[in-house]
């Protein structure tokens, strides 16, 4: 196990940031810490980096006890949401910083910096100041800077959070490829489930200071441990007292299917190839159900506002009992 966190507690005043958290993050993998803002995932990352000290519990990195080591001695690379660029240094100087601190020979440093700038596609910007770079470029510089010291683990705190949607998408694909190339144990914090599902080998879902579930993206999506994980990982709707994904609901125009519930389509929005329907069930007091169907299905069944339909969850679709209905459509 590369990073082992056991029984970590952390409070800020009265606020419990981490409540007895234990996780094992395997060597060489790309792990996402996923959860809503304020849930404690950044605090966990900062405790791993030594930027924050746990009130109790232990942290081991590659078998070395690191709980009381200062950040300088942990050999971790840390990438911050807002880049944390050294504004008065050129891009090359930023990347060279860790190596200069370690008093590596000049020639070796220069060679390593050139390699890294090549890796992050910033070679032509080596002599610019960070202020002259775009956000995405600055974050790539920060990554190169963190990688320069050949860290045991690479920690990224919402690395794409300050970037706009398009750059964010580009950069996360790029991060995945970079990880496959560099093979360093990487942990990144995100509140964007799509980002986590797309990039990570493994996801740790953290909420209110506790680990809700650990697993591969498929496991999390297909077998959510509870309603929180289910609703955090994608859109959900309530049908028959259970949380179901809107696209895991089948629509019928006859009552023939057993278990299907009748209702009337009250709204209909088309977004590209998919069509979102709102179905008001006939049963009095039942909540409105969101259903997503393809454009083809909608046309085939002739669905429109006012149509009488019957809905039922697809066979084998993931579903969990509703515990706290407020969380519905959290990320829809």
């Amino acid at each position, binding site marked *: 196990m590369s990073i082992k966190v056991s029984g970590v507690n952390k409070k800020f005043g009265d606020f419990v940031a981490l409540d007895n958290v234990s996780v094992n993050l395997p060597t060489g993998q790309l792990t996402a810490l996923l959860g809503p803002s304020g849930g404690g995932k950044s605090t966990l990352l900062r405790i791993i*980096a*030594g*930027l924050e000290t746990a009130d109790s519990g232990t942290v081991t990195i590659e078998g070395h006890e690191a709980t009381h080591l*200062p*950040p*300088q*001695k*942990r*050999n*971790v*690379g*840390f990438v*911050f949401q*807002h*880049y*944390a*660029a*050294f*504004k*008065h*240094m050129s891009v090359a100087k930023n990347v060279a*910083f*860790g190596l200069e*601190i*370690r008093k590596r020979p000049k020639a070796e440093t220069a060679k390593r910096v050139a390699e890294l700038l090549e890796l992050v596609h910033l070679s032509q910007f080596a002599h610019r*100041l*960070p*202020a*002259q*770079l*775009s*956000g*995405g*470029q600055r974050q790539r510089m*920060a990554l190169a*800077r*963190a990688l*320069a*010291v050949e860290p045991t683990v690479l920690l990224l705190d919402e690395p794409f959070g*300050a*970037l*706009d949607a*398009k*750059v964010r998408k*580009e950069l996360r694909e790029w991060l995945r490829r970079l990880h496959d190339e560099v093979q360093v144990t990487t942990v990144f914090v995100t509140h964007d489930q799509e980002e986590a599902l797309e990039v990570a080998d493994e996801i740790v879902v953290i909420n209110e200071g506790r680990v809700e579930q650990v697993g591969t993206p498929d496991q999390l999506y297909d077998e959510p441990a509870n309603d929180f994980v289910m609703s955090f990982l994608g859109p959900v709707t309530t049908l028959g007292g259970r949380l179901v994904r809107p696209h895991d609901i089948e629509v019928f125009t006859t009552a023939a299917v057993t278990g299907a519930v009748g209702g009337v389509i009250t709204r209909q929005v088309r977004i590209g190839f998919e069509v979102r329907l709102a179905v008001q069930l006939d049963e009095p007091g039942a909540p409105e159900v969101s259903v997503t169907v393809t454009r083809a299905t909608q046309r085939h069944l002739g669905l429109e506002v006012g149509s009488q339909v019957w809905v039922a969850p697809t066979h084998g679709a993931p579903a969990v009992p509703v515990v706290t209905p407020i969380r519905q459509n959290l990320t829809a």
Partner: protein
Amino acid sequence: MTQTSVVGPPSAPVETQDPGTPRKRRARAPGRLGAGSTLGLGVTMIWFSLLVLIPLTAVLASAVSGGWSGFWDVLTNPQTASAIRLTVFEAMGVTVVNVFMGTALAWMLVRDRFFGKRVLDIVIDVPFALPTIVAGLVLLALYGQQSPLGINVANTRYAVFLALAFVTLPFVVRTVQPVLESLERDTEEAAASLGASRLATFRRVVLPSLVPAIAAGAALSFARAISEYCSLVLLYGNLPNRNEVASVRVLTYIENGDKAAAAAVASILLVVALVVIVLLDVIQRRLARRG
């Protein structure tokens, strides 16, 4: 206090655009002058000229009214030369003290937490707020003939140093403090995780970010020290060649009716003031470039 480039473009918003696209949103072009504003500009410029431009020009004109040799004679007069030397020397000394003390104070006000911090914050502004003649009196109360400490520096060079240190205390503190406050803590954490010790982080990451502010504060402090007169009035005791500063020289010349000589010394002070302003502007621009 470093706000010198009063007409720079508004600071760009935190940019989040993709690489390649132009970064800066252009500020809307300033308006053209209409009839009302032209009138405003005209009246303002006339007022400004009468109050500032023409009088300051008069100083420079009078300084050389007796020809360059007259100007040079005034400045090389032993008593005047010694006053200018003393002023520059003391101003530099005070500025050095301020650089260290001011930075330390700003550091403590931003990074430390202790009982009475808010009081300290206010006390630092006292020299700004206190009428400077009172400042002289204040220092005499502790360091004059009736000193409860038994230290009497009245009428010595130390008195000049003390007075200058008093009136210039806030400059470096107040220029460094906001910069230190706005410093992203992330960068220090980044340096730490890259293996830099506390001292290395301070020297290589924090200090370079503070240098422009320290320089600006030092420039202001030097300018103020070199031109100080008021707080010295009660302290200096008028001993030519010993503790007379440049401003006092100007006054002595005025009182003796030698306006040309007064203007000659004054023009030196004026030039120093202008140099400082230009320097501050340069610092401001360099900072803007760094973003």
